[in-house]
């Protein structure tokens, strides 16, 4: 038995989660990173890139929701961009109709989207894999069609809040503390960080364990006493909530929303980048958002059409599906380590040959 080989690595078994250096180092690194993003980035970058990074922050939340569903529970949804549009719609409606503080609007957008998104998740109780993907894609298509006819609210009256005769559309309001673009960027990052924290709490506790069980085998999960229906719906509810909040941020960041900005295929591209980023780590969501929002901004500024990205993402997904199922977030550090070993090996060989030939 390989117990002997494991003994060497065994830590004292009763230390609660190992109160070693890592327990403190990790949060410290994250806080430092967050501080850099919040304070240094807006000062260093042009407004063009600040705006692009605001989109990254927003889409990182969307990717987080989809990553939770696909990576933790094993439910592949092709309707998340439509869920985002729902959140944006609700937030827009509230921003025009009420004087509620922005955080409350975000919360309400999250909650309403949660209710609607859970309905989108209902098919998940009976379906999985290809059929679930197909059904969620159809639902996304339906949402796109409905949005195209109702349009996003633009300050009009009635339930839909759309005035087709408006010559001048008022801009969506932003929180007073975050009315400039750099300030709204910071605001988005903080909201995003809160959403990641919410996800982390879920993944680390009872629901996270239940999801891991469901992902591996539903029968085994039920035998373990897990109400699989409840926990699947819970996953959809959580993913929809964070996506709805992201929709609220999107309303505030873009200030004008148009239904053509939410095509059905956006959901497919979203799944592609989420897979490329890596669905088994929460960090993968950030990588996914960088691919989806920063890369096109870079290409644009270099005068290259971002349409080429579709091909790149296609190749990327192929690579993930065939050789690196845990995505870039897992692959890149491994590759870097390999390159590092290679370089240090070369350096050592150099040093050795240097010694022998004085």
């Amino acid at each position, binding site marked *: *038995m390989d117990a002997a080989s494991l003994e060497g690595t065994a*830590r004292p078994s009763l230390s609660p989660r190992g109160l070693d250096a890592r327990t403190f180092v990790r949060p410290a690194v994250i806080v430092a990173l967050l501080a850099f993003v919040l304070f240094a980035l807006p000062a260093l970058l042009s407004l063009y890139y600040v705006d692009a990074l605001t989109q990254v922050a927003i889409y990182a939340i969307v990717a987080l929701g989809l990553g939770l569903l696909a990576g933790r529970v094993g439910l592949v949804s092709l309707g998340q961009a439509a869920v985002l549009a729902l959140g944006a719609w609700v937030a827009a409606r509230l921003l025009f109709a009420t004087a509620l503080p922005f955080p409350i609007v975000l919360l309400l957008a999250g909650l309403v989207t949660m209710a609607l998104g859970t309905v989108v998740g209902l098919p998940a109780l009976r379906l999985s894999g290809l059929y679930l993907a197909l059904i969620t894609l159809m639902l996304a298509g339906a949402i796109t069609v409905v949005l195209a006819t109702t349009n996003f609210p633009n300050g009009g009256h009635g339930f839909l809040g759309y005035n087709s005769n408006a010559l001048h559309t008022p801009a969506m309001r932003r929180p007073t503390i975050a009315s400039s673009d750099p300030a709204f960027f910071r605001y988005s990052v903080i909201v995003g960080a809160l959403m990641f924290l919410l996800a982390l709490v879920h993944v680390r506790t009872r629901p996270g364990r239940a999801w*891991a*069980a469901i992902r591996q085998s539903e029968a085994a999960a039920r035998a373990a006493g*897990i109400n699989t229906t409840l926990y699947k719906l819970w996953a959809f509810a959580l993913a929809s909530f964070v996506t709805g909040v992201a929709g609220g941020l999107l309303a505030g960041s873009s200030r004008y929303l148009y239904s053509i900005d939410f095509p059905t295929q956006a959901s497919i591209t979203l799944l592609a980048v989420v897979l490329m980023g890596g669905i088994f780590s929460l960090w993968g969501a950030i990588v996914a958002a960088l691919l989806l929002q920063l890369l096109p901004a870079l290409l644009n500024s270099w005068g290259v059409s971002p349409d080429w990205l579709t091909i790149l993402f296609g190749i990327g997904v192929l690579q993930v599906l065939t050789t690196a199922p845990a995505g870039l977030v897992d692959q890149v550090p491994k590759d870097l380590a390999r390159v590092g070993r290679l370089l240090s090996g070369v350096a050592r060989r150099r040093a050795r040959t240097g010694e022998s030939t004085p």
Partner: protein
Amino acid sequence: MIEVSDLTVRLGGVTALDSMSVNFVQGTCGLIGPNGAGKTTFFNVLSGFVRPVGGSVRAYGEDLLGMVHFRRARWGLRRSFQTEQAIEQLSVFDNVAMIHEHSRLSRASRRQEVLDAISFVGLEIDPQAKVATLGAAQRRLVEVARAVVGEPRLVLLDEPAAGLPDEETEHLSGVIKAIPGHTGALVILVDHDMSLVSACCGATAVLDFGTVIASGPTGEVLRDEKVMRAYLGTEEIV
């Protein structure tokens, strides 16, 4: 005491259980039979994954089949699967804790009881190690730890020793024998390894084509002519 009477299950065109009737009284009981006899199907009925067309199962006087499947774990039903199902993404501790958190027991004692279960099965590894990093024998022990945690009342083990080397099987055999004394649960052991079954089980029932063809003290049952014939596949000429 588990009383099974007239249990009948149809899967597609196959009658997997054909009015199966048997009582499992106490301790570790064996359930054996040739491939396709219906042993796993019987476990699936107890788990609530398969709905029988007829018959009943009473466990300690309660109607087990009337319970929703995921509630049965709370009641005290535990099982291991023929293809082992410890959750790879989670640590050994979380694998076992997950069962405890869906049982009736309080949170306060969870940590200790989970560690107790891990040491009961003789797993001498870091509880925080991910199951994906373990070998086959250790994973099997994780499954048994999952089965004994949180005051189980009925433990179903589906071929827990399949594919294990003799040494590991012997260790597992000791653990299985100790479960009733340690937890008070009744254990039903399905396995094709007759020496394991004779070592662990006082009483054994034999299934063949979904029907119980013999039951009683393990030694006697194994010597039974009908049982030998079932295993050798000798067709009766009617």
